[in-house]
């Protein structure tokens, strides 16, 4: 079931990640433990192998994984791991 009524708009506005980012995300996903499953979105439960495939294909789930990875790296730069980052904006 697709819950996201803004999906089309989101897809149009989605950031396009280049091959370097894709390769980075694949490399990071390779470090997931064997037998790991990620639950993401409206009921999707994806194994490590399936996630890597999604990233390589660049589909919606793959784009999401790239967004999460880039958000993490950006967050490190912005000090998200310090206590003050927890404060309410």
């Amino acid at each position: 079931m697709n819950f996201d009524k803004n999906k089309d708009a989101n897809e149009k506005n989605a950031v396009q990640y280049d091959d370097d980012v894709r390769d980075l995300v694949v490399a990071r996903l390779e470090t997931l433990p064997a037998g790991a499953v990620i639950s993401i979105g409206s009921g999707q439960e994806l194994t490590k192998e399936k996630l890597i495939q999604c990233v390589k294909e660049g589909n919606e789930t793959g784009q999401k994984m790239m967004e999460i990875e880039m958000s993490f790296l950006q967050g490190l730069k912005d000090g998200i791991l310090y206590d003050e980052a927890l404060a309410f904006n």
Partner: protein
Amino acid sequence: MTKRLLLTRPDHDYATRYLSAWAEKFFDLAKEKGCSIIDLRRERANRIEVESVLSKRNPCFVVINGHGGDDLVAGYENKPLLIAKTNSSLLKGKITYAISCQSALVLGEEVGRYKDTAYIGYKDDFILLYLEKYRTRPTEDNLAGLFLEPSNLVATTLLKGHTAKESVLRARQEFLRNIQKLLTSKTTTDDSSALRYLVWDMKHLTLCGKGDKKL
């Protein structure tokens, strides 16, 4: 007067079974604090039952375990339970915690505008990482625990009499503690691969509405 806690636990896939099993961890505390639990499990996690409980039994605390979207939270077999501009007013005057994807974005914002109401949820996808081998015994899965212990802290903090804002802060602190533990201890690469997803959930856990509301 006895406080009532409404809980939905659809249990129709592995993710919702994990949420359901981990939610049981705060049942004892709820009872100890004098709360009666209205547990809508599996097929009972449907819109008709939820609407009926909310309007007739007036729980002060609502915990939704399930999938969702920006304007709704869902129950058994992903059928919508509470939807923005449709039946969200049933959450008026209550504290709601939705362990669900994206619902804080539209539904939570709308609910948070009602008087004397708080809605805690996630502005984007709630990510849960778990291990296949623990599917039949989710509470033994320490990897999933990195995500679900901070999440449960929202409920336990509220049950202990703290405010909605404090519950979110404590949960975020617990996410951060898990992140820092993974960064600084001699954990395996396996565990540290969870980092980015913990950061994601911590970042998107949000409070809408009245921050000083208590149960």
